[in-house]
């Protein structure tokens, strides 16, 4: 919080002034990974010195300022109990319940750390939405809405070994994969996100370009509402799981690098693939089981609907084609007649959330953070919704064990049990993990594709060019990512704002970043994070523990004066930490 002389460029000041006058809002911030798969280099500031002695006048904040969040009461469903700045470089997170996924969660871009003074000054007028100040390798110098977002290297970046290798960075955006490819081929940009599946061969055949597979970190499934006939019958659900040729779907409709799913959680997530793989394709067994199930239900045939939305996602690259393929497999393999029921996206999601989808529905999930809790608890945990009808108690119990145990062996056993139960009950037929990718000019070094879509541009060098130009699917909505959920905004934030932990570059492991360590107590209900000393924000302010407290509290408490954001929804907080403090009345 202690502020050094301001070093903003006049150009940035001009841009800010224009934005402040003409516009009224926007925002964002988030994390940014560090180096390779290790903690930042030895050149990085350390946390060795006793923090309290660094500034004896430091007054640590706590949130809530007095008392704790009312854990386990009707008014509070969250698991965050209290956040305290123990000293200048030590933050303590007290939780209502053990959380072994704490590290992957705090590494998530949404929990980027902001300078508390800057937040207080710029959140109320929302100017922070377009002019973020962070500790990351880049700073924003220009955002021309609708056109481009321009960064410059942060000259004060704390991790010298990982400072920006290309001095300038530009983000462009285009929703059309073909258009993005033309930009890359024409040399207008250096890298692009998500080439179309049909274009990958073109890129691979062009010696001036290079393609990187983005490891799949998502799951496509066929869901059932198990409270609606005939899906009440487990044998019928199992028969469908055995009667769908998933390999054929992946081979024909998914891009290179995609996989047939064996478990609901992808195997590159720790503890993701414990337990038995799901049902193999076995037509004879499927037909026999289906007959058995129908006999039990007193029916001789099944006519249903295949319900889906035409929204392209990494887990579902071509919804109408894949729905048609599944329709024909159901008919040809099992004799099940299914009409295609294409619904508008929002309507479909509403119907799903309300448990109103009575056919077989096509849906999926992409990872927010790499932990089974992110995949399994949302769908099958104790607090899961009506998406699949009623939750299965035995699955939920196993997931609760997995989500609250710090012991690896215990988590392994819990997730093995949960996955075996998911296989048995088949609330969903697990189909595929869809890959995507990035493409770059061949002369860009350090280029990569991240499974979490959080590419780190500071480690990329665009030959001898001063600018690295990147084109992604969409424009960021704001640069205060505490209140954003779309990957395009998060990636833009990650270049400027950093979190306590980060994910390894091109991987999923959570590694120390602004914190040199976050250590749990014995039952993982208290996590103590030690910040690196000497880290500065791009405006010259020094990072301290109060910045962490304020950055988190602004998201946590709906009554906090800085709980503003772009839309004010702060979607991710309740999703990851269970609920807001002072939640809004329904």
């Amino acid at each position, binding site marked *: 919080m202690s502020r050094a002389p301001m070093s903003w460029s006049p150009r940035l000041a001009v841009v800010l002034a*224009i934005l402040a006058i003409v516009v009224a809002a926007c925002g964002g911030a988030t994390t940014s990974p560090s180096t390779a798969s290790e903690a930042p280099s030895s050149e990085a500031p350390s946390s060795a010195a006793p923090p309290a002695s660094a500034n004896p006048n430091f007054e640590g904040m706590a949130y809530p300022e007095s008392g704790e969040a009312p854990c386990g009461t009707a008014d509070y469903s969250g698991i965050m109990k209290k956040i305290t700045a123990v000293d200048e470089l030590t933050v303590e997170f007290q939780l209502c319940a053990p959380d072994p996924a704490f590290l992957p969660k705090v590494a998530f871009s949404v929990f980027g750390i902001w300078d508390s003074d800057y937040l207080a000054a710029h959140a109320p007028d929302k100017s922070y939405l377009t002019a973020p100040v962070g500790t990351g390798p880049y700073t924003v110098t220009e955002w021309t809405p609708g056109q481009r977002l321009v960064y410059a290297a942060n000259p004060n970046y704390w991790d010298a070994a990982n400072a920006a290798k290309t001095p300038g960075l530009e983000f462009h955006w285009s929703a059309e994969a073909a258009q993005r490819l*033309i930009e890359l081929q*024409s*040399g*207008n940009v250096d890298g692009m996100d998500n080439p179309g599946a049909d274009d990958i061969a073109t890129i691979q055949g062009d010696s001036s370009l290079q393609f990187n597979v983005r490891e799949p970190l998502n799951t496509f499934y066929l869901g059932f509402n198990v409270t609606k006939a005939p899906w009440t019958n487990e044998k019928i659900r199992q028969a469908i799981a055995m009667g769908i040729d998933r390999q054929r779907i992946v081979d024909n409709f998914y891009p290179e690098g995609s996989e047939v799913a064996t478990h609901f959680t992808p195997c590159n997530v720790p503890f993701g693939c414990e337990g038995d793989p799901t049902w193999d394709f076995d037509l004879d067994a499927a037909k026999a089981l289906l007959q058995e199930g129908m006999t039990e239900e007193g029916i001789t045939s099944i006519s249903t609907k295949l319900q889906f939305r035409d929204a392209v996602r990494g887990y579902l690259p071509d919804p109408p084609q894949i729905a048609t393929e599944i329709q024909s497999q159901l008919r040809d393999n099992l004799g099940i007649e299914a009409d295609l029921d294409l619904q508008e*996206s*929002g309507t479909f999601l509403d119907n799903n959330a309300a448990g109103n989808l009575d056919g077989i529905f096509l849906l999926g999930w992409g990872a927010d953070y790499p932990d089974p809790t992110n995949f399994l608890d949302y769908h099958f945990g104790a607090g899961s919704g009506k998406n699949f009808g009623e939750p299965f108690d035995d699955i939920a119990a196993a997931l609760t064990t997995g989500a609250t145990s710090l012991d690896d062996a215990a988590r392994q056993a819990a997730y093995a049990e949960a996955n075996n139960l998911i296989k048995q009950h088949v609330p969903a037929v697990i189909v595929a993990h869809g890959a995507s990718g990035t493409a770059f000019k061949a002369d860009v070094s350090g280029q990569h594709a991240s499974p979490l879509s959080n590419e780190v541009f500071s480690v990329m060098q665009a030959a001898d060019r001063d600018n690295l130009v990147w084109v992604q699917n969409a424009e960021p909505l704001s640069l205060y990512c505490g209140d954003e959920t779309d990957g395009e905004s998060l990636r833009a934030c990650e270049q400027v704002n950093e979190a306590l932990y980060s994910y390894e570059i091109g991987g999923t492991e959570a590694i120390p970043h602004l914190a040199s360590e976050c250590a749990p107590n014995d039952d993982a209900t208290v996590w103590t994070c030690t910040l690196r000393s000497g880290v500065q924000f791009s405006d010259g302010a020094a990072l301290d523990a109060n910045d962490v407290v304020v950055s988190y509290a602004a998201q946590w408490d709906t009554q906090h004066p800085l709980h503003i954001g772009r839309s004010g929804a*702060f979607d991710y907080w309740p999703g990851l930490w269970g609920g807001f403090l002072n939640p*809004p009345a329904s």
Partner: protein
Amino acid sequence: MIQFILRRLLVTIPVLFGIVFITFVLARIIPGDPCRAVLGERATDEVCDAFIVRYGLDQPLPTQFVIYVGQLAQGDLGDSIKYSRPVTALLVERLPTTIELTLLALTFAILVGVPLGLISAVRRNSPADAGTMIFANIGVSMPVFVLGLLLAYIFAITLKDTPFALPPSGRLSSGVTVTPLAVVWGLEDLQGLPRAFLDFISGLYLFSALISGQWSAWADALRHLILPAIALGTIPLAIIARITRSSLLEVLGQDYVRTARAKGLRENAVILRHGARNALLPIVTVIGLQLGLLLSGAVLTETVFNLTGAGRTMFDAITGRDYVVIQGLTLVIAVIYVTVNLVVDVLYGVLDPRVRLQ
């Protein structure tokens, strides 16, 4: 004439009110809920409840409409649900792109279409006439996105690294900026409507770079607009060429043209002074209509060439259920459309004194 214009403006008010009402209703008939469209599939019911209250979407529709009309009366188009920013700010940023693209496309269409039509009419049934009309038919038939992608492929990839290469997207190259007029003229302290107007003008890159002498930026902006303008202008070009041809052919068959020729006037004078001038009326009508259509129909071109203009913003607003932006943009485009038609009507009187503005 002033009375005519005032009367037309008065008639415009109920027209615009009707547009506001119909747009308001239609926007809400689109299936889907704005919360999940804006916040995505992760939005919980709790978050959506708060979202709907925040944007007043929990109010009965008549109440929402009254509030909206009240805002309009104060010149406030509301705040975008998706961007949480005033629609007027979005307009200041994005409408200039569409206007610049439209005007350049129309200029291209007129400069090429009218001469083609004239040549075609003068050399009726000649190979030139046939060639021109074949070109016009292809132009009318070819979808904008096909032509756009074709042009982008040829000029950005096939001709890459040659002097004929043109950028396939965006408004400016990496590293090139057009300094806003407020900065150039030292008016950074200017606020409110004058500042918004100045920023709007600054968004017209070709114009603002031209008047502020930013030549390299002007050239770069022009290079970026050439392909989209050709793609967008080809259909109007073909229409203008056909109308010019048929209109001029009709005029050339009139008695006064025969008289002019009988007087011994040179053929060029007959065609240009007596023929083309009298053939202009239907051409101006078509140009006026095309301008309106181009303004409201640039969405495909903007998508193909990755230009974030009003058309693209409208498309995003519809898919994102951003009611406020749909309403605001529709209203503004309607105002432009009505204004263009009024100007065309006034031009009739200027071009042909026999037409009385009544």
